[in-house]
């Protein structure tokens, strides 16, 4: 089981947090801080596993992380997960992000946290790995995005009918 997925930048600013076990908000922040503290002081060429932070789970849990440019992707997992498998999974996740955002960078994650969540939801569900095939993940994300678009398109049409006299491109103001 995956217990938590944390993405934060080189300064420890959270970009996405996803806990699969309930923690109160202040506890979540403390876990992020502690994890950042553990991970950030490590060289880039040392091992990507850390034995459990004391806050989550204890000795059965491991932190498995990868550092990409300005971002840390940290998965907290228990012993039922294969360490190297999770490393691969992080890679799949990041590649998927890259495909969906077209050359993903930290800013994408900052401004589209919700979209990142939706992508993650196609990879991991309730702490268990749902899909590891990138094409399948991307396909599902795209279908849902299209649905969203068509819904907003319908709304726009509806709007346009009522708003014609006001402003034809009003939706772009938002």
């Amino acid at each position: 089981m995956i217990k938590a997925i944390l993405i934060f930048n080189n300064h420890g600013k959270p970009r996405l947090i996803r806990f699969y076990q309930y923690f109160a908000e202040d506890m979540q922040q403390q876990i992020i801080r502690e994890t950042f503290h553990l991970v950030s002081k490590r060289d880039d060429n040392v091992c990507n596993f850390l034995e459990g932070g004391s806050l989550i789970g204890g000795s059965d849990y491991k932190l498995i992380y990868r550092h990409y440019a300005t971002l840390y992707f940290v998965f907290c997992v228990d012993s039922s997960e294969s360490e190297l498998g999770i490393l691969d999974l992080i890679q799949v996740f990041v590649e998927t992000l890259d495909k969906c955002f077209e050359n993903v960078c930290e800013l994408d994650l900052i401004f589209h946290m919700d979209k990142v969540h939706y992508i993650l939801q196609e990879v991991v569900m309730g702490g268990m790995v749902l899909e590891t095939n990138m094409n399948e993940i991307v396909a599902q994300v795209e279908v849902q995005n299209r649905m969203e678009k068509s819904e907003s398109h319908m709304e726009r049409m509806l709007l346009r009918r009522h708003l014609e006299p006001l402003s034809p491109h009003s939706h772009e103001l938002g």
Partner: protein
Amino acid sequence: MALKIVKGSIDRMFDKNLQDLVRGIRNHKEDEAKYISTCIDEIKQELKQDNIAVKANAVCKLTYLQMLGYDVSWAAFNIVEVMSSSKFTYKRIGYLAASQCFHESTDVIMLTTNQIRKDLSSPNQYDTGVALTGLSCFVTPDLARDLANDIMTLMSHTKPYIRKKAVLIMYKVFLKYPESLRPAFPRLKEKLEDPDPGVQSAAVNVICELARRNPKNYLSLAPLFFKLMTSSTNNWVLIKIIKLFGALTPLEPRLGKKLIEPLTNLIHSTSAMSLLYECVNTVIAVLISLSSGMPNHSASIQLCVQKLRILIEDSDQNCEPSVNACMKYLGLLAMSKILKTHPKSVQSHKDLILQCLDDKDESIRLRALDLLYGMVSKKNLMEIVKKLMLHVDKAEGTTYRDELLTKIIDICSQSNYQYITNFEWYISILVELTRLEGTRHGHLIASQMLDVAIRVKAIRVFAVAQMATLLDNAHLLTGNVQRKGICEVLYAAAWICGEFSEHLDNPTQTLEAMLRPKVATLPGHIQAVYVQNAAKLFATVLKSQEGNTDSTAAQETSQLMIDRLPLFVQSANLEVQERASCILQLVKYIQKLQQKDVEIAEEVIALFAGELNPVAPKAQKKVPVPEGLDLDAWINEPPSESESEDEQPRAIFAKEEPKHSRPRHTEVDEKELAKRREARKQEQANNPFYIKSSPSSQKVYQEAPGVEHIPVVQIDLSVPLKVPGLPMSDQYVKLEEERRQKDRADKKKKEKKKRKEKRSGRGKRHDSGPESEEDITPAHMVDIVTEEMPENALPSDDDDKDPNDPHKALDIDLDNLMEMAGRRPLADSEKLPVRSHRAAEVLKSPAQDGDAESAASQEPKKKSSKEKREKKKDKDRDRKKSKEDKKKKKKHKHEEKGEDLLGGQAEEPVVQSEATSEVAAPPTSTTAEVSDLDFWLSNAPVPSNTQEAATVVAAAEAAPTSEVASGTAPDSEPDEPKDTETEETKSSKHKKKKQKKEKEEKEKKKKKKHHHHHHHSDGGGEESVQNGTVEEEEPLPPMSNYCLLAENSYIKMMMEDADKVNDIQGNLQDGSQVVVSVIFENKCDSFLKSMEFNVLDSLNSKLQRPEGSGPHDGLTVPFQLPPGVSNEARFVFTMQSIITPQKLKGTLTFIVKNEDSSTHEKLDFKLHFTCTSYLISTPCYSDAFAKLLESGDLKCSSVKLEGVVMPFHHLLARICFRHHFSVVERIDSCASMYSRSIQDHHVCLLVKTSGQTVSIDAKCDEPTLLGNVLDEIKQTFSQC
């Protein structure tokens, strides 16, 4: 309406969306909190609006704020509103927010049930998907209960996208609502073979999670997983399955054997490191589960170690350095697993591991340290620790250095200082460690110093000298504020110097050092020890000075105390103050006496007389309640007989000289005992490695000559250890090396001498090959005093599981669900609840049809559901049929192949022949399942193991069809140890065969089938004779293994007596199954039919009933009895625990049919399962037997039988026959015997006879079982 939409949209245009919020926060870095609070106010306003788009936008922003640590639970209701929007866009936002901030105590969750249910059944698969994803994060027990049925339906959805999500979420549902596991499991199992790989992977994932916590319940899925493993190409699925197998193998070693080959293939073929690593890991698990030392597995171990070595040392240029580091880390991790069972194969890679200590990655260094812990031996300890000390010097950063320090101490002190050959060296290591700056582990070093000084008597002189130096240079330790942690060492130093002050060279100087004003700056508890031990020292000093003619020295010492102590009297620490003032008064009084020239040293010394021995922390807890002592019983009742038993000598089975078994009277006995005890003590005292374990050690201590008399090898220290802080342990390494060389040379010399003396060449024990562990003699004759424990201390049993583990509730037996068709149908209460008023709307799966009945109270519905149920039953029946057919076919195939039909009897059609009608075990689902698994496992391609062969033979013997039985039973005879068979034994065998015939006649059975029982008893008898002399011994009296169970004027039920558990096959495969054969004999001259056998199940033991019958239904005996005919039926029982005997009440009902009338009759009986009946006579070789006894895992007990008048070999045969033992070795009137229970407990007996007294000493790993077996043996002999 239209206007409202327009208005809402316009509002929305001016609201911030998520991007605006983020941008805003980034632009307000200085007053972020303030900015956010205004944003939250805006959001609150937005949430008040009716427009769902506005609300959704607000909720989306809240989700972002939640990530920043803001509590947004106040908006929970709005989130629910957004969730229930009909638009996918908003729904998704709502569910995302809910999944981020809902939890079990969010009370609005209960409002969501219907909404979620609606979404789950939405025609749009993405609505369903979003709902499932959200639910997986916030499912509560209530939601799980209410929605389990809907989710289960979705597991068969047409879209794989939904199926895989539904399958995954079931795990969460199980966790929250364990009752759903049983009803849902068959479908979950189906999904393992789903055409979509994603769904398959999800099902594997869920079952692996379930099985990880309760592996035994999933053992029967092994064949399916095995198939998946060999067919799947999805690495993710493979990894999960292989991990699962790693958890299953410890439960079923045969599985491991089957796995080795495909795993090895994968290791060779895969390019994925993750898969390779998991394969290696599981191979290791397999090898651990198999008993080690099998030659054909050393190749696997070598392969693993080799691959791991590559993992550790190779760095792939294509990989990131961090990933290479990961491999290194994992390689070391796996190595440490191998190390536990195959230390030799890892130890050869010591170089590699020491190299890892230099790695820049701390976690790799720590792993390497862990490995070193297991790699040390007497030979290399000093060398390894020396390396570690170097690292201590180099290590920057206190955490790693502290880790090193604790590891050094762990390594040295492990298993009671097993690897330390030179304690002076160890003390100097400890002293060196005190130089560490800023360590937190001062107390650890201190406790080691105390422990070693107390327990290793021989080292005290040296330790005291070292401690005195430490005390003298205390300023070095305390001078720096940073060194606070290390001053704990002074606590130990002061105590050691005080307690063992008689060894001090210059006690006055040490006393002076302990009373320095600077001491007052130490922590209170250390000062207290200083004061107390100063008093001890003072006593010693007085003693030494009193001999002198000059009394001024003594008076000066007193004066010193009187001068210095007031400083402590003023201490702020109560303890220090109290002790100091007490001692000050005492010294003042002493001084007065001194001035009167009174000799008082003896009396002062008496204050501190006596020796302190360490007491184990658990000692009190482990005091066993003496046998026969009932703490609740009345005190006035007569005392129990337990005392006599307690006096029995405890050491049994130590190959005693024959003289011990000579007849002896009780008086002599006592004397003899005392003598032996004395001798033993002497021996122990001379044995440097004897570890005293009994509480009497204290006594022994004072009486025995003790270690003082043992010549201690004095080490001539070339460097006086005066200055602490100088590395000196190195000297020991050199000295040790020299000493060992010398030892070796000596040994060789002796060896030569010996060889000259003895030309026989027998005792070639000391092979002058490479130095082995045992060859290293300790430099010191040390006596490690273990912590005191009460006699018969109970084995530790502290590993309790966490009672809060949610997985405990999921420990549910799933076996009888495997065949879907409701062999043990789900009870109504087990079915997933469906809310009655919704029942019509809800999509229903066929499996749930029956539920409607419980839910619906209306008449019409009930009817329809009943109809449906009937339909379903029909369907099930059909399915079952086809399945059975298939099984038959499969079986047939195997028969043709000539393979053994392990456990196949369940499906075998009942064979009715005139001589025998074999009734196989009732075809219950469990047996079928289990036998399937067994069948699958029995094909394991590794028959090399003798035990395996034995199983096969046993299985063949017990195979159900009479042909097979009669065919193989004689075949199996050659399997008995043939070579030892002499003419005599053969003749005795003939004799026995005759007896067998007699018996058969007597019992009016000419059944071939029984061959194997008799053969079995033959085996026992045969073995009992094998080792003994047979010539003049009379033939064994006939023994029947059937006893009367119940009888009336119509029918007689006989049960196989001692051999009641005759079906060895069933037992060997399943440690909880017992087969009982019952012979029904028609005694009247009417026809008996419709016999039904029923037993009242107990908690522990249950009769296995066929599919579909309730727990109280009887079993139909599948034959009728014409007058005068007898027949046999077998019944399978499942036992939970076999350590105590069981009694089951039962009834046999039958119809007596005459020509003109028929009556219904019944017969009550009691089935008695003795503990003996759980034992299987298993041959055991004497060396294996000896090893078993030495292992120390066994508890012992003994029994004495008086007035046994039968010859010894009869006695043995009787034990063999009645109690299923086999003779291991027999010497004169002494024999060792062995047997094994169906759950693999070893039972060893040592039977000695003298006159009419037979004493049986016994050992077993399960004391309760042993006690019961002994009682039963006693019973057997009291009857004759």
